[in-house]
């Protein structure tokens, strides 16, 4: 679905992304994994044109990603996007957030209603909460609204930037399960950013472990665990293991 050729990005003096070539296969879930500031969110924003690359080319469906205008807008309508906290519009209800783009494209009321019903069922969102404003929703509910909004136009691609980042552990666990089911059901091309190894392994077919603007290793979780490409990979995996015997750190 995506092909990146020698893509790089700088912010001032900081090289957020070193030249990178990469293919993201259609219908698969790719996870961008790594610590804060490793360039994973920058990479994600290159995929829907929120950021233009400094060098190289981003190909979407074999064609160059447009840099602006109507062409870029139509690409974005085929690429759903949700980020940490949801990025919901606070002045619109949950339903209005989800259907905003459909209304802008003048979908019929029946079509909007039908699609909304399908999404509510898919994301297991309580129907009566659709009329609530973001400020009245729980963190998990807001994330589900963000997901519905990203899926409303039935896009080919879903880009998720730490979608579960700000949630407490129980809600997070529940949503991880739901996301997994959704990915399996929809079979869309998904690119998910996270810094959580277990989440990456659970949701992703293919993991890109990143550090300081470079991809350190690419593969399945087992590959990373059994054949780490360099000491950083081992350290990263080690750091996210459960503490042995409840232990040395004095945790419960």
């Amino acid at each position: 679905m995506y092909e990146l050729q020698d893509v790089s990005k700088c912010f001032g003096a900081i090289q957020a992304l070193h030249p990178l070539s990469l293919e993201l296969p259609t219908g698969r879930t790719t996870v961008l994994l790594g610590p804060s500031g490793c360039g994973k969110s920058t990479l994600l924003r290159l995929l829907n044109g929120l950021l233009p690359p400094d060098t190289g080319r981003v190909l979407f469906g074999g064609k160059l990603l447009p840099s602006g205008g109507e062409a870029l807008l139509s690409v974005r309508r085929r690429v759903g996007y949700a980020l940490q906290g949801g990025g919901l519009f606070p002045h619109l209800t949950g339903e209005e957030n989800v259907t905003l783009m459909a209304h802008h494209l003048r979908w019929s009321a029946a079509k909007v209603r039908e699609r909304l019903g399908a999404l509510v069922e898919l994301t297991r969102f309580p129907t009566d909460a659709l009329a609530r404003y973001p400020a009245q929703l729980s963190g998990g509910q807001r994330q589900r609204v963000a997901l519905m909004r990203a899926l409303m136009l039935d896009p080919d691609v879903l880009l998720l930037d730490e979608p579960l980042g700000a949630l407490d552990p129980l809600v997070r666990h529940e949503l991880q399960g739901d996301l997994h089911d959704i990915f399996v059901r929809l079979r869309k091309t998904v690119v998910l950013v996270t810094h959580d190894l277990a989440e990456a392994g659970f949701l992703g077919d293919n993991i890109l472990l990143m550090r300081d603007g470079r991809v350190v290793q690419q593969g399945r979780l087992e590959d990373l665990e059994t054949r780490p490409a360099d000491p950083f990979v081992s350290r990263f995996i080690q750091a996210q293991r459960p503490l042995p015997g409840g232990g040395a750190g004095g945790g419960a």
Partner: protein
Amino acid sequence: MRGAWGVLLVSLLVCACGSASTSGEGAHGVRVGSKKFTESVILGEAATQLARSTGARATHRRELGGTAVLWEALRRGELDVYPEYTGTLRQELLSGRHLPDDAALRAALAEAGLRMSRPLGFNNTYALGMKEAEAQRLGIRRISDLRAHPALRIGFSNEFMDRADGWPALRDSYQLPQQDVRGLDHDLAYRGLESGALQLTDLYSTDAEIAAYGLRVLEDDLHHFPVYDAVLLYRQELEALAPEALAAMLRLEGRVSERDMVTLNAEARLERVPEARVAAGFLASALGITSEVRGDGLASRVWTRTREHLFLVGVSLLAAVVLAVPLGVVAARRPRLGRGVLGLTGVIQTVPSLALLVVMIPLLGIGSRPAIAALFLYSLLPIVRNTAAGLAGIPLEVRESAEALGLPERARLWRIELPMAAPSILAGIQTAAVINVGTATLGALVGAGGYGQPILTGIRLDNAALILEGAIPAAALALLVSGLFDVVERLVVPRGLRLGPASRPR
């Protein structure tokens, strides 16, 4: 695009103001003006009533803010006639021409298409005055008589002490010997005369106090003080357009003596008779002309002022919103340009309102137009700044989400950014509106009417009731406008933005 907005706006503004200020003034109506002191208002009133006595339509723009305002308005043809003084014309308005006498003055005025009546009969200039009884006792009639009384106790206003043509020049030209000369406040000087602490002070030769305190005005036998003969100054074309009305007004020539003027000033200032009635009384006794003086009740006066005030505030605010909100959007989108826009509107804000009003007069004349333009300019800063701040305050993830959805820029602005910035934008408009209500009171200085009119008159006449007649409604209107915006906010600001985090269920 932005240029087109500006042109549209200015033309809207001019249309709105134009239709307002031309209403009620027919092709052959006579427009009389007067300065913001009592004598000028009485003379303006008298001229207006005389013009009306011929059946002509005449309007009186009272209490305009200063000589320059009236002079400009007359030259631009926004006024047809106003009372002026030959001294003011020669020493102030045409001072660069060094005109030696009234004939030269007439010639200079004719070049500008203006005419001057013969003197009305009184000379309002600097003079020296004493209590009548005291002057009689000492045998003082003329200023030169003072030479014989070196021990006289004298108190002059501070201004007269300092002016080059004041006391120092007077002392030199009359060779006066007095040493006991004190500078003090004018009001205190009158009280000093009354108590006997002072024997001589300076005054204007038609001051109301001359009658009130029983003062004798000493004759300026060496003609030291410049002559300030009162005249009517009018546009030449009035001779063709309204000859009868002009002839009637010119009947004032030579008919108003200094004694008459002192009496009329005293009636208006000390007895608080409205100027229109003072003028009518004089016309009846001196010229045998009866004119009907219409006195509005308090409620009707306040209602008229309210309409004028609301017009000034409403039009200027509306125009400011139309320009300032787009400017705020531009300022938020392009920070460098935005700093320029904010800087410029900030500079406008620092221009003193009186100066801004006077600067507007050559461009826009007198009446509501310059006032609306000034208020419009003052309203820009709070609205531009709050619009820009409201847009800049939208969280990055919200802006990114809107962009990533594939919404075009214009739709993002209308559906997401402006609604989210609405509370801030409204607060800016509210600030501008409240400031406008207060500042619009200055509009009376350029003939725009409004609550400033009674305030101005009240200050001139030292009449607290009149000041309150303008100040109380102005304060009430400011509160009302502020309250109104709270209601508007409830209607306009989306409900989702008014929910605090407290209402979020866990």
